[in-house]
């Protein structure tokens, strides 16, 4: 036995800052079995050698074998590496003694008592900050013995720890894309990922020159997937073959690996890589800012802005702050409800408020009264709803707060197109990060007011207050009435003509109450009945609202051009190789959706293109809640409508179209299906 120990320990080679040796896991070879060989590497303290992907610099060891005839050696089974930071670069490698193991298959006909000799030309790079390349020819002779007397060698423990660090190959194949300057990987949330999510500093891509290793890894997750993204290396050449991802579980110190396939599934930049959190926040801020220009918000904002500017400077800031608090608070309230409901397992997305006919009904009342107030038909005084005061004479802090709340309520239907990305990301984040996105959205909405208060020079751009303001206010009533009409239409789509009748009756009652409100000075006779009339009227209005909300939806009249979405319909259409599929996820309260349908999806040219290209048009209507559609949206990382997806005939990967469609864009997408 002593003889064999010597034979496996034949050749440690000393080079600058490193010792290398060819070693075997067992002391001998048993005929008909394979054995483990390994390159044992012992760098000096603080020096390191490299993994298969060395990172931003460095080189992995290379081995060139000389083997007996009919023998073979497998690839190195790389143990997962450590992350080593060198200045502004990141390397992947090993510090300390380790073995890189391989499986050796000896020649088939071996006789006990023979020796088998192998040798290898090894070259490596060993680095601290500076690097020293080295090379050596290492050899090893192993006796052939019977299985009874083969023993582990002294290197068993090194092989053991290499084995523990060898990533376990997962059955699921991940997908990767290199679009938008990001290397993004999507893994199915099954197997080990069911209840574990990798951490960003323990993720390694196996191929060099693909990612920028020093850049942050961004991890996001949905119910069915985990997505990992890192910026591409500036030296990425565009080609990737045979790439895998390794991730290490910090708790168990177990490593897993997934082989990856290229996909074009995700074509939009924002989806290819989940935008970095900071970018999501900025998008949210920008989206909030854009909301100010929406027809339903603009009247509220502009009148408020004029009043704030015309008040003494020292009152402006408290008012702007109160307004901001009102906006941000309301956003957080709605977001908390949304996130809480989602956490409770409800399939919901942004815009969910408008899926309830009751809330749409309430909004109709609010818009209508607001319109009446702007028209000067009624001056809502007293404590009756703060927004009324703020729109007219009261410039107090409380009025500003309620204007903020009102702005948020009226803004919620008008989700600006690129808010979809931020909100989609927000609901999938941990709740505290998600709330941050909604806060930024609110800040964006409140920003013009804050700017006006804190940068008084902006106020000088606004015209001086004067009698024209009354005219302006009255003018602003008309976009509000139009918004009301739109909401009535949404309600009609959600319910039926009866509900519209109820709600319009409610509006008439409200108008009557307003009229009544103006009368007492002139018609004393009425005053006795006034209180009971008001009470009765309010009850009547509420009853109308409740009735409207409870009306069952109409059977939708079927348009022959499209099919209603269900997962089965989609699958059936996709399974037919003679047909391509165009999916449109929409909702009546989604302004962007309606504009797109009008502009791009209702023309004769579009219908013609569907026919000539044999495209099945499937439409999912999310006007009311529909978990099937929520799931479908989630499968594209979306949490809101619109979503347009095109599936080519050949069963190839689906293509997501932008959220703002043009006729040409759609025709091109459909036309390219052949």
């Amino acid at each position: 036995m002593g003889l064999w120990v010597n034979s496996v320990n034949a050749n440690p080679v000393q080079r600058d800052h490193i010792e290398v040796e060819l070693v075997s896991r067992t002391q001998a070879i048993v005929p008909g079995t394979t054995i483990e060989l390994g390159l044992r590497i012992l760098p000096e303290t603080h020096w390191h050698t490299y993994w298969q992907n060395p990172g931003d610099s460095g080189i992995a060891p290379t081995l060139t074998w000389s083997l007996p005839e009919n023998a073979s050696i497998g690839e190195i089974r790389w143990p997962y590496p450590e992350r080593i930071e060198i200045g502004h670069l990141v390397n992947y490698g090993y510090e300390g003694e380790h073995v890189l193991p391989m499986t050796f298959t000896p020649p088939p006909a071996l006789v006990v008592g023979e020796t088998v000799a192998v040798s290898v030309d090894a070259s490596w790079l060993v680095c601290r900050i500076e690097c020293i390349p080295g090379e050596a020819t290492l050899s090893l002779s192993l006796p052939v013995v019977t299985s009874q007397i083969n023993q582990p060698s002294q290197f068993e423990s090194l092989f053991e720890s290499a084995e523990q660090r060898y990533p376990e190959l997962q059955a699921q194949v991940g997908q990767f894309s290199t679009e938008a300057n990001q290397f993004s990987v999507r893994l199915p949330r099954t197997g080990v990922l069911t209840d574990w999510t990798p951490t960003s500093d323990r993720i390694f891509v196996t191929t060099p020159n693909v990612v920028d290793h020093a850049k942050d890894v961004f991890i996001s997750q949905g119910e069915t997937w985990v997505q990992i993204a890192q910026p591409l290396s500036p030296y990425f050449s565009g080609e990737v073959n045979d790439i895998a991802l390794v991730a290490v579980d910090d708790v168990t110190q177990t490593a897993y690996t997934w082989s990856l396939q290229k996909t074009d599934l995700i074509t939009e930049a924002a989806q290819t890589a989940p935008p970095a959190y900071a970018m999501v926040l900025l998008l949210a801020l920008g989206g909030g800012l854009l909301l100010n220009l929406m027809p339903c918000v603009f009247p509220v904002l502009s009148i408020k802005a004029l009043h704030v500017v015309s008040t003494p400077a020292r009152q402006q800031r408290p008012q702007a702050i109160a307004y901001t608090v009102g906006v941000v608070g309301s956003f957080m309230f709605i977001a908390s409800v949304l996130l809480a409901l989602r956490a409770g397992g409800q399939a919901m997305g942004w815009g969910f408020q408008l899926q309830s006919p009751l809330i749409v009904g309430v909004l109709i009342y609010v818009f209508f009264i607001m319109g009446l107030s702007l028209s000067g038909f009624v001056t809502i005084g007293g404590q009756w709803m703060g927004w009324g005061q703020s729109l007219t004479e009261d410039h107090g802090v409380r009025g500003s707060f309620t204007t903020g709340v009102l702005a948020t309520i009226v803004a919620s239907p008008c989700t600006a197109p690129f808010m979809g990305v931020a909100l989609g990301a927000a609901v999938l984040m941990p709740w505290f990060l998600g709330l941050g996105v909604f806060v930024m959205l609110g800040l964006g909405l409140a920003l013009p007011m804050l700017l006006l208060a804190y940068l008084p020079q902006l106020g000088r751009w606004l015209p001086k207050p004067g009698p024209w303001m009354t005219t302006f206010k009255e003018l602003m009533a008309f976009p509000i009435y139009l918004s009301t009409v739109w909401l009535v239409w949404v309600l009609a789509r959600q319910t039926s003509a009866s509900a519209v009748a109820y709600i319009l009756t409610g509006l008439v009652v409200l108008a009557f109450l307003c009229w009544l409100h103006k009368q007492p000075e002139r018609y004393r006779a009425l005053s006795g009945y006034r209180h009971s009339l008001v009470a009765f009227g309010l009850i009547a209005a509420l009853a109308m609202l409740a009735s409207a909300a409870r009306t069952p939806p109409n059977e939708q009249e079927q348009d022959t051009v499209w099919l209603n979405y269900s997962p089965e319909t989609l699958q059936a259409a996709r399974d037919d190789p003679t047909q391509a599929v165009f999916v449109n996820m929409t909702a009546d309260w989604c302004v962007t959706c309606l504009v797109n349908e009008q502009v791009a999806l209702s023309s004769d040219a579009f219908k013609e293109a569907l026919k000539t290209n044999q495209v099945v048009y499937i439409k999912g209507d999310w006007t009311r809640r529909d978990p099937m559609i929520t799931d479908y949206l989630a499968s594209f990382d979306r949490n809101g409508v619109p979503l347009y997806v095109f599936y080519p005939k050949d069963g190839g990967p689906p293509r997501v179209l932008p959220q703002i469609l043009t006729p040409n864009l759609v025709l091109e997408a459909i036309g390219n299906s052949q």
Partner: protein
Amino acid sequence: MKMGNLCKVMVAATALLCLGITPSLAAPVVGQPAPAFEVVDTKGQLHQLADFAGQTVVLEWTNHDCPFVKKHYSSSNMQNQQRTAKDAHDVVWLTVISSSPGTQGHVSPEQADELTQSREAAPTAVLLDEDGQMGRAYDARVTPHMYIIDASQTLVYMGGIDSIPSARIADISEATQYVMEGLKEMAADQPISESITRPYGCSIKYAD
């Protein structure tokens, strides 16, 4: 009138916001204007990118103690490329040293000239980038790290010196010499086919 003004305010605010979020990315991009630089050479002469407008410029990051640099100098591969670039392609070849004082590869002007002489190198000039400003502007990571800038001062190549990342001289003859190939393609008025490659070598020892 009123609405117009308010719109103006918002457009201005949006514009401000957009300006604010544009990240200042210094990393060079092939096909884009090359990053500017202003560095003194071993003779004390100041060189700026703009000085070389109308000429092709090759940048070579170096560290004479780096084994990968040694590979290409002791085999004369680098010197031959410098001469070919100059003689056949009329190229301005700038060797850049970004090692900070006290780190491997840092040299005085005299030492740098001595190295040029003893190695029979033929750069147009050796630039001393002690503070690493030029290196960082180009996101130079290793030595040798190579760049080609065309006559219109557009970056047309960035990456390694050749295609086999090793410290073995024997590999040079097997490898594609990217800079030479690139200059040939430019001379034939063709786009450079491999314009971005993996740079390999020793990491550059920048000042913190």
